[in-house]
């Protein structure tokens, strides 16, 4: 903007005083908040007794970040934003311009092309072995969560049913694959749909008694269901292997033509005369999960514009009105639950094939919470928003592992992963402050007469049950 530079330098003295005051306040608050969390470190001494010591340096850094950050925001960032808004208002430019940039308009196509080209790009940059980390930890990991969140989105974002036990269906899918491939030697491509169907079946079984409940009650019962499944997996040792889980789960093959088992004759690397590496398997898996994600998106988009999908959204908006229009809300909720569970089941069986190992550890409540957080952050109902949220949240936590340089700032024994949840929470608070409806808060209508106008998030409801 041309006229922002000219005014940027003049800062009223009142603003600076305010900034200093708020900065100090933020520092005091941060001191209070982090004193026990960050300032105190517990460790075991030689006698194995738990003792503690203060980490004043680290605490000081936290407090300084808060104080200086607040000072800068109040003193510089806010006035700057206000001036820009004012300048825009004066110039008569509307807040949201209708014209979107090239990138914005073709965002989906660009994203898809990037994803398809991602493994070759990574391989050419880092070599086959070096690509492992990026394809597996970033690519596959993020895409699994994208798929899970898109599946949960059907239940929470579209139908408005708060499901806190979604991870149960993920577990059903994973264990279905692990057990059935173990006992019957069935292939991944047969078990993938089967795992989805089994998970959908469990979705319906759970749905029947639970869906008469609404709101908080539904949330609590689904939470309990998730825990029950996990406890069954942990304690039914003869079948599930208990806490030790099941290891040596069969790998997926390229439709039975090439295998990734090291000893097999049709081993992919052997057939093509490539050096042995597990990276090929990961790259293959990357494309599998990408395809699964695309199927999920396609089905969700299709369903949304069909009567059933519209009924889901109507259910989220007003259940009583739905019933007054002759919609069987119980059946409608059950289909949402079943479809959501099915996607969870697909993701689960994929997870088992990728990991080669399943145990109850992987299906704790925290997983459900993370998936739900992604759905909420992305903007309930919006596939694009949810995908972005998954990249930010899961990619972000993975990135933390890479942040070796933080050790120089916070000291040698600083392990960034341990602060994952803290940052997770911080990010959520920040997003909810600035974008209370998630990254993409508006919804696309499924039909239109003259023009398709996005519905602002202020009109849509979150659902009550």
């Amino acid at each position, binding site marked *: 903007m041309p006229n922002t530079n000219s005014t940027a330098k003049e800062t009223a003295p009142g603003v600076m005083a305010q900034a200093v005051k708020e900065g100090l306040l933020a520092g005091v608050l941060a001191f209070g908040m982090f004193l026990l969390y960050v300032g105190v470190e517990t460790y075991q001494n030689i006698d194995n007794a738990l003792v503690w010591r203060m980490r004043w340096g680290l605490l000081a850094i936290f407090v300084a970040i808060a104080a200086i950050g607040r000072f800068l925001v109040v003193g510089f960032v806010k006035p700057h934003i206000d001036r820009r808004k004012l300048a825009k208002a004066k110039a008569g430019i509307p807040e949201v311009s209708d014209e979107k940039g090239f990138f914005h308009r073709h965002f989906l196509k660009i994203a898809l092309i990037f994803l398809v080209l991602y493994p070759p790009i990574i391989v050419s940059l880092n070599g086959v072995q070096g690509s492992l980390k990026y394809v597996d930890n970033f690519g596959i990991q993020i895409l699994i969560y994208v798929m899970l969140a898109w599946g949960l989105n059907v239940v929470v974002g579209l139908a408005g049913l708060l499901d806190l036990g979604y991870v149960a269906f993920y577990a059903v899918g994973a264990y279905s694959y692990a057990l059935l491939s173990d006992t019957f030697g069935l292939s991944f491509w047969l078990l993938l749909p089967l795992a989805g169907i089994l998970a959908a079946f469990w979705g319906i079984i759970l749905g029947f008694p639970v869906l008469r409940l609404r709101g908080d009650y539904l949330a609590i019962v689904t939470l309990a269901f998730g825990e029950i499944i996990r406890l069954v997996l942990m304690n039914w040792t003869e079948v599930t292997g208990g806490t030790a889980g099941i290891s040596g789960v069969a790998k997926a093959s390229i439709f039975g033509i090439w295998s990734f088992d090291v000893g097999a004759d049709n081993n992919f690397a052997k057939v093509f005369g490539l050096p042995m590496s597990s990276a090929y398997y990961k790259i293959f898996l990357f494309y599998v999960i990408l395809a699964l994600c695309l199927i999920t998106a396609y089905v969700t988009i299709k369903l949304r514009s069909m009567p059933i999908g519209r009924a889901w959204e109507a259910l989220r908006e007003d259940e009583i009105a739905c019933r*007054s229009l002759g919609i069987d809300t119980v059946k409608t909720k059950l289909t949402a639950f079943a479809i959501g569970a099915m996607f969870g089941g697909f993701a689960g069986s994929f997870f088992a094939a990728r990991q080669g190992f399943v145990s109850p550890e992987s299906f704790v409540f925290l997983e459900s919470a993370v998936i739900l957080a992604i759905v909420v952050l992305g903007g309930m109902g919006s596939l694009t928003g949810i995908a972005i949220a998954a990249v930010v949240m899961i990619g972000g936590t993975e990135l933390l592992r890479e942040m070796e340089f933080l050790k120089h700032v916070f000291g040698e024994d600083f392990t960034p992963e341990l602060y994952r949840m803290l940052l997770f929470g911080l990010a959520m608070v920040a997003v909810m402050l600035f974008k209370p409806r998630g990254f993409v808060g508006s919804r696309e209508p499924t039909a239109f007469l003259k023009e398709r106008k996005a519905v602002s998030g202020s009109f849509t409801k979150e659902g009550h049950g």
Partner: protein
Amino acid sequence: MTSGNTTMTRDTILKVEHLSMRFGGLMAINDLSLEARRGEITALIGPNGAGKTTVFNCITGFYKPTMGMITMNRRNGEQHLLERLSDFEITKKAKVARTFQNIRLFSGLTVLENLLVAQHNKLMKASGYTIMGLLGLGSYKREAEGSIELARQWLEKADLIDRADDPAGDLPYGAQRRLEIARAMCTGPELLCLDEPAAGLNPKESLALNTLLNSIRDETGTSILLIEHDMSVVMEISDHVVVLEYGQKISDGTPDHVKNDPKVIAAYLGVDDDELEDVIHEELDGGSH
């Protein structure tokens, strides 16, 4: 046609017999019997708390009546005992649609989508319960276009066509009322139950509502059961009026008959005939806002 009940002529679309509804110690409806005739607008009036909405909730299955029988006589000769059906089946099978005293729209869906949701059952069937539609088989596409066409017709009738692609929650109050009626009509009802459609409307919107209701009755042959406080609406458009007080029927007949019934006048604070209208307006304005 399977004709049935001898006590019910072909002209009667809805028959309520000895209906009672008890909430704990409160008898909200006490032994109420009434009839609505096919092709007519029947008004249900009465002071606040008389039990009008409760009657609607019993007819449309949102409450299970403590006692009584509600018979719906469909055009094709089918008879449905509404007290035995659940709420959504009453709309689906017995073809009774309703609106709510406090508007219930899908505010985050567009106006058009609201009307499409109302055609859910028809579209579900056409899409082969989603499976055929997902595969692009069957008549779903044609049916989907037909449903948009039907929605367009109702949008025109309700004078909402210009707002078709806006969220329903963004409409002004009067338009929301009309949309709710249009949405109910999209379920293809034979009996339409309207709970105070004119409440909160300005005179102009009120007039537009009268036109809409008359056109519904005359062009589609849908019978209407109407709860209304606004006497100008009631006297103008209804063919038949039933008056409730404390859950009991105190009068029943043509608008003129009811207007001059001393019991009705007494119920509305015992005022004179010509002051009746004004008092009711005052009562409404003072009492419900």
